C-alpha cells in the first residue's frame, strides 16, 4: 500500500515564536523527499508535526485519505527512525523490533517470527538476544531501521539518522536505507543537514530556511538551477556577483558589475537574466583563472592546492572572489589575471 503525504499551509509555534510559516509540501506515493537545512530551519519541527509530537497552530496534514492533523502520535501508523535511534535499553534487539507489533495486538509467536525476519533482512542475524548497550553504532542504526520497518508503515520518516555514524558507515547505511525504502514502497520523509546525503538518497529535496521551503526540486535542479541566492549559497556557489543588465547586443546581454566592468552573456547559453538587477552565481570551478582573455580582471591572492586544481583568492572590482585554475599552469600570487565564467557552472539569480 503506497500513499501520498500532504502538508497544507502548516504553521507552528513554540510558545510565542513562530517556527513554521504556511508550509505546504506534497510527497507522491513511494517518493523519498528530504528536508535539508541548517539547524533551526524548521526541518525537524516539520517531521515532529507529521509524527504528532507537535500540533500545528493551523493547517492540515493528510496521509493518503486520512487526516492526521489531530490524531495522537500512536494512532498515526508512521515508522520513525530517530537521530539517537531511541532504542529501548531494557529490551533485547528482538523485543525492540517486536515492540510495534505488540502494540498492534499481534500474537507473541507471530511477532517474534516477523521480528526475526526483519532482523535478518537488516543483516543482524545472531544479534536478536543482545541489548542495545552491547551493539555498535551501525548495529543500533539497523535495529532502529528494523523496528520502524516491521510495522509495515505507509510512511517512513528519518530524523538525521546517520549523523552519529562515522563517514564510511554513513555511505553504506544511506544505500541500505534507500534499498529498503524502495523495497517496501513506503513514502519517506528524510531530514538532514548534510547536502551530499540528501542529494544522494532523495527523489526530491526541499531546502528549508527560517521555517519556509526555499526551493523544492530534484537534486539536479537544485544543483544547477538554484532559485535564489540562499539556495545557491547553500548548494555551494561560492561567488555571488551583483550585476546590472545595461544593454542588449544582438543575442547577448551586456551586464555591468561593481567597479564598472562589463561582460557579455550570450542568451543562447545563459538565458535571460531574471530581472534588471540580478546575481551571477558561480562555483569556484565556474570561474576559471587564466593569465589573459575575456572575463573579470583580478589580482591573484592566496593559492591553495586542491588536488584536481589550484584555488585562488582573487581581488576584483566586485570584491573577493574564489576561482580555480589548471594544475598545468600555476600562477603566482600578486600576478594579474582574468576570471572567465563557465556558463555550465554558473547561474543567474534574482537579486
Amino acid at each position, binding site marked *: 500500500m503506497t500513499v501520498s503525504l500532504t502538508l497544507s499551509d502548516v504553521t507552528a509555534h513554540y510558545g510565542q515564536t513562530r517556527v513554521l510559516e504556511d508550509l505546504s509540501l506534497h510527497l507522491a506515493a513511494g517518493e523519498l523527499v528530504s528536508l535539508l537545512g541548517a539547524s533551526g530551519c524548521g526541518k525537524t519541527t516539520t517531521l515532529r508535526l507529521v*509524527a*504528532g*509530537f507537535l500540533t500545528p497552530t493551523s493547517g492540515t496534514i493528510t496521509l493518503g485519505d486520512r487526516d492526521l492533523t489531530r490524531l*495522537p*502520535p*500512536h*494512532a*498515526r*501508523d*508512521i*515508522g*520513525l527512525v*530517530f537521530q*539517537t535511534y*531511541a*532504542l*529501548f*535499553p*531494557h529490551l533485547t534487539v528482538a523485543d525492540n523490533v517486536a*515492540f*510495534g507489533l*505488540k*502494540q*498492534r495486538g499481534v500474537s507473541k509467536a507471530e511477532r517474534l517470527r516477523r521480528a526475526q525476519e526483519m532482523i535478518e533482512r537488516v543483516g543482524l542475524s545472531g544479534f536478536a538476544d543482545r*541489548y542495545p*548497550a552491547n551493539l555498535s553504532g551501525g548495529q543500533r542504526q539497523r535495529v532502529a531501521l528494523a*523496528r*520502524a520497518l516491521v*510495522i509495515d508503515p505507509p510512511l517512513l520518516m528519518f530524523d538525521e539518522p546517520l549523523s552519529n555514524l562515522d563517514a564510511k558507515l554513513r555511505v553504506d547505511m544511506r544505500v541500505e536505507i534507500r534499498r529498503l525504502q524502495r523495497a517496501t514502497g513506503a513514502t519517506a520523509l528524510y531530514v538532514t543537514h548534510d547536502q551530499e546525503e540528501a542529494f544522494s538518497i532523495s527523489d526530491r529535496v526541499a531546502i528549508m530556511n527560517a521555517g519556509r521551503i526555499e526551493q523544492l526540486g530534484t537534486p539536479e535542479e537544485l544543483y544547477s538551477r538554484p532559485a535564489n541566492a540562499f539556495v545557491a549559497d547553500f548548494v555551494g556557489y561560492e561567488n555571488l556577483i551583483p550585476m546590472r543588465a545595461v544593454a542588449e547586443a544582438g543575442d547577448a546581454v551586456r551586464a555591468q558589475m561593481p567597479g564598472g566592468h562589463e561582460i557579455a552573456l550570450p542568451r543562447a547559453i545563459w538565458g535571460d537574466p531574471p530581472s534588471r538587477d540580478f546575481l551571477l552565481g558561480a562555483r569556484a570551478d565556474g570561474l576559471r583563472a587564466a593569465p589573459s582573455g575575456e572575463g573579470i580582471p583580478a589580482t591573484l591572492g592566496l593559492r591553495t592546492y586542491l588536488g584536481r586544481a589550484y584555488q585562488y583568492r582573487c581581488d576584483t572590482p566586485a570584491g573577493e572572489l574564489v576561482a580555480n585554475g589548471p594544475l598545468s599552469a600555476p600562477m603566482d600570487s600578486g600576478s594579474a589575471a582574468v576570471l572567465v565564467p563557465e556558463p555550465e557552472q554558473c547561474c543567474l539569480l534574482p537579486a
Partner: protein
Amino acid sequence: MTARTLAWALAMPALLLVLLGLGLPVLATFATTFTGGEGPLAAYAEFFTSRFRRVVLWRTFEVAAVTTLISLVFGFAAAWVVAKSPARLKSWLIIAAVFPLLTGVVVRSFAWLVILGRGGIVNETLLALGAIAEPLSMLYTQGSVIVAMVYLFVPLMILTLVGVLESIPEDLTDAAASLGARPGAAFRQVVLPMAVPGLIVGSVLVFTGSFTSYATPQLLGGEQQMMMGTFLYQRAMVTFDWTGASTIAAVMVVVTLATVLAMSRLAQRLNPVAS
C-alpha cells in the same frame, strides 16, 4: 613520599573518625547484646519471645512499609509531572520540594500536632461544619504517625525520582508512541521499567528512614504507638536497660542492612542492562 603513602595519609584522618567514632562504638553495642544477657543469645531470645517487643517491631515494619508505599505512589506521580514541566515551573516545584526537606524533622512533625490535635485545624473545621459533635482524637494513632511520616519522606521520593525520570530520554516515549503505544502502554512498557532503579533507591531511603525514625513517632505516636526508635530511647534513657537497648539497635541495623542488600539485589535482577 610515594603516591600511595600520600594517598593513605590524606585518607586516614577521616577513616579514623569513622572507625573510632562509629565502627568501635557500634561494634561495642553489638558485643553488649551477646555478653549482657544470661547466655550469648539470651538478649535476642528475650527480644523475640516478648509479645510487646514483637508488636513494636511489627508496628515499625508496618508503618515503614505503608509510608514507603504511599510515598512511592504520590512521589512518582508528582515527580513525573515535575520532570515533564517547562524549565521555570520545574525549578519552582523543585524549590517547593526541597524546602520541607531541608526544614527540620521537629518542625515538620510539630506542624501535624497543630493540624491533628484536639484543638487543631481538622477538628475545628469539622466542629464548625457540624460534622462531629466532639473533637476526634487523631494524635497518638498509627494513622497520624503514617501521615506525618509520608509528609517527611515524600519530598525525598520526589527529588530522587525527578532525577531518574529526567534521565529517561524523551525520544524513548516518542519512539514508543510512533510505534503505536498508547500513553498508558508506553508508560508501562518503557517508563516504568526504566524507572525501576530509581523507585528502588527511593524506596530504600524512605523505608530505612521511617524504620529508624525517632522524633516523629515520639511526637505523634507517643507511648501508645511505640516504634523501634522511641523504644530504643525509652530502654536506654528511661529504664537504663542497655542490653535491651543494644538489642533493639542491633535489630534495627540488621533490618536496615538487609533491606539495602535485598533491594540492590532486586534492582540488579530487574535491570539486566546494568550488568
